[in-house]
């Protein structure tokens, strides 16, 4: 009981995230993530298997269409592995982004009644997608072992970890931006799935990024924040050299998006209770 709580209620400033406060509310990250996962898989016959089924079935279709049909190159890796290593991390991004973009609206009842740092909501929505990621990652590793790829434990884990962090960064910035705008302009509700679809084709999931070296398309890939994580996720299994320039470009875009996202989110969060 004798906790010394003291805080000030003041007009908001936009640029800062109050880390001390986030730390105070740290358990809410856990609870919101836990709730999202729980609710998502409740009443499904297959439960968590869905997290595996989606990338697996996509892998089969892409392999059939692009490798067998269109004869796309996939370098060192068998196309199945090539596409799955991209898909797992891509689905973290697309799943996380579409969860998070609607998260403020779907939690509007809570927002209207209770205070807590609003940023916890979209971030927890992304964390729920990270949970799914680990399941599809397990399948990826199993497949890599099945195909007899040289998995260097330390290196693979390191690269996957960096890829995960970069992907979360990339997802967070856009998520904060879109979840806030979505409250103000409901247009985004319809635009976001479409936007994700377009980004998918602009990301090197089904094709190799170096196929476009020297073309005008290359610049689009360079500034794609998901390009780096996909590249790393793939390098973790192929053992090929890493294009660090690509990573830096991705990271820069991610960080700019994150700054913009935090700024816009902080700017708009005070109106969430009125608008949502």
């Amino acid at each position: 009981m004798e906790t010394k709580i003291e805080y000030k209620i003041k007009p908001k400033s936009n640029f800062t995230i109050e880390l001390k406060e986030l730390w105070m509310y740290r358990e809410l990250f856990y609870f919101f993530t836990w709730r999202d996962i729980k609710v998502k898989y409740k009443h499904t016959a297959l439960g968590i298997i869905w997290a595996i089924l989606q990338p697996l079935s996509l892998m089969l279709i892409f392999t059939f269409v692009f490798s067998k049909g269109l004869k796309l190159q996939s370098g060192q890796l068998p196309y199945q592995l090539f596409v799955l290593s991209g898909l797992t991390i891509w689905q973290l991004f697309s799943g996380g982004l579409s969860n998070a973009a609607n998260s403020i609206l779907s939690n509007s009842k809570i927002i209207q009644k209770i205070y807590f740092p609003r940023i916890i909501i979209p971030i927890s929505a992304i964390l729920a997608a990270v949970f799914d990621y680990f399941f599809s990652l397990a399948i990826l590793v199993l497949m890599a072992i099945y195909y007899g790829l040289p998995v260097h434990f330390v290196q693979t884990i390191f690269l996957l970890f960096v890829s995960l962090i970069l992907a979360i960064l990339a997802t967070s910035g856009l998520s904060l931006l879109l979840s806030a705008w979505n409250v103000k302009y409901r247009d985004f509700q319809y635009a976001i799935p479409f936007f994700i679809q377009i980004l998918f084709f602009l990301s090197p999931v089904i094709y190799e990024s170096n196929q476009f070296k020297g073309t005008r398309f290359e610049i689009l890939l360079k500034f794609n924040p998901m390009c780096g994580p996909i590249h790393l996720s793939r390098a973790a299994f192929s053992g090929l050299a890493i294009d660090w320039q690509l990573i830096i470009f991705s990271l820069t875009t991610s960080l700019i998006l994150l700054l913009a996202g935090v700024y816009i989110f902080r700017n708009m969060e005070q109106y969430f209770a009125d608008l949502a």
Partner: protein
Amino acid sequence: MKPILEVQNLWKSFQIGAQHQRYLSMRESLTNFAKHGFQSKKETFWALKDLNFNVYPGETLGIIGRNGAGKTTLLKILSRISPPTKGSITVRGRMASLLEVGTGFHTELTGRENIFLNGAILGLSREEIKKKYDEIVEFSGVEKFLETPLKHFSSGMQLRLAFAVAAHLEPEILLIDEVLAVGDAEFQKRCMGKMDDIAKSGKTVIFVSHNINAVKNLCNSGLLIMNGTIQEKGDLNSTINKYLENLSSNEAVKTIFTNKLIKDDTPISIIEAKIIDENNKIKSTFDVFEDVILSIKYQVNKETNGGVINFELFRFGEQIALSFDTDLNQTLLNNRKIGLYKTQVAIPRGRLKPGNYAISIGCGIANVTKIEHFENCLEFEVVLESQNESLVSYASKRSGIIALPLHWQTKSKNDEQL
């Protein structure tokens, strides 16, 4: 002693014009921008103007004021739902609000899971919830259903569970909005009981209300807000008296109320309400021996089960009655079909003593939710003119809140044996 709550130069403004717009479409914003550029010509409305006050530990403060005075705005700032425009509030202690009963409940999760989720959202740590879990379960009385998804709970059970969690928050400062009026009478009684316990246990309580009786029972000091400024702070009785004076020195008497925001997306929405006499004439002054008739127009937007229309009657700010249109009409309660309705209810003559009366009307789903509530939206006056002044039980200065036209049967010993 340091104050537990320090409000300093607190201002809050709203943009008029943006107020009724729930959300925008991008097209509108773009065309607006194209038309006006960066200059927007919105008017600013100051809902709170330079509030300064302290609350000390153990104080039970009743915030009173008329509808629209700024009570709810202040409460929203205190509970940090909306930020102040200028100024600051220093809070020294954990604050919780009984407004938040059941917030964050998810119908797909089980009772047990919801206790944890709700507790966490209200600010309890996992350890604290674990410690209090058994107590919460026992208080809620829904032990048998803890592993059942919440959607199979009756609304009463959901409320009990929700209140059980809220009651175990143990905050240092408790915020209460009187809009606690959800749930059945027993539940409300329990809420009031719990609040009383908290207030008497030396906790700091801030209670927002226009119900003078409830404030008198619960509080030891008062704060009167009028038009966004503090009119009186301190002694409870003088604050209440000032409020009552203000109520009766009332500008224009409201005999007709029109809802400016009729909703199509709620099950029920009130359109209009007025006070009329037997001849269907709108009136503001009634004689004691006249029926006062309340007439309400409303629309039902989707077929509704459990829908109710109600009114509350206040005399000099003190609630004396509450009535539901479904009290004697089970069919209406079970099924209300889509359409436009008009309902009339007479407050029979001879009950209301002279004085100033206010009526709040509302609609909702019984025991589940309040859809609309219009506080003190109608007002009228009752006078005694028709009969001679020997009717002392009707004299407004005498004790008693209402009068009863009773028939005393008096016999004298002289007439027959008793």
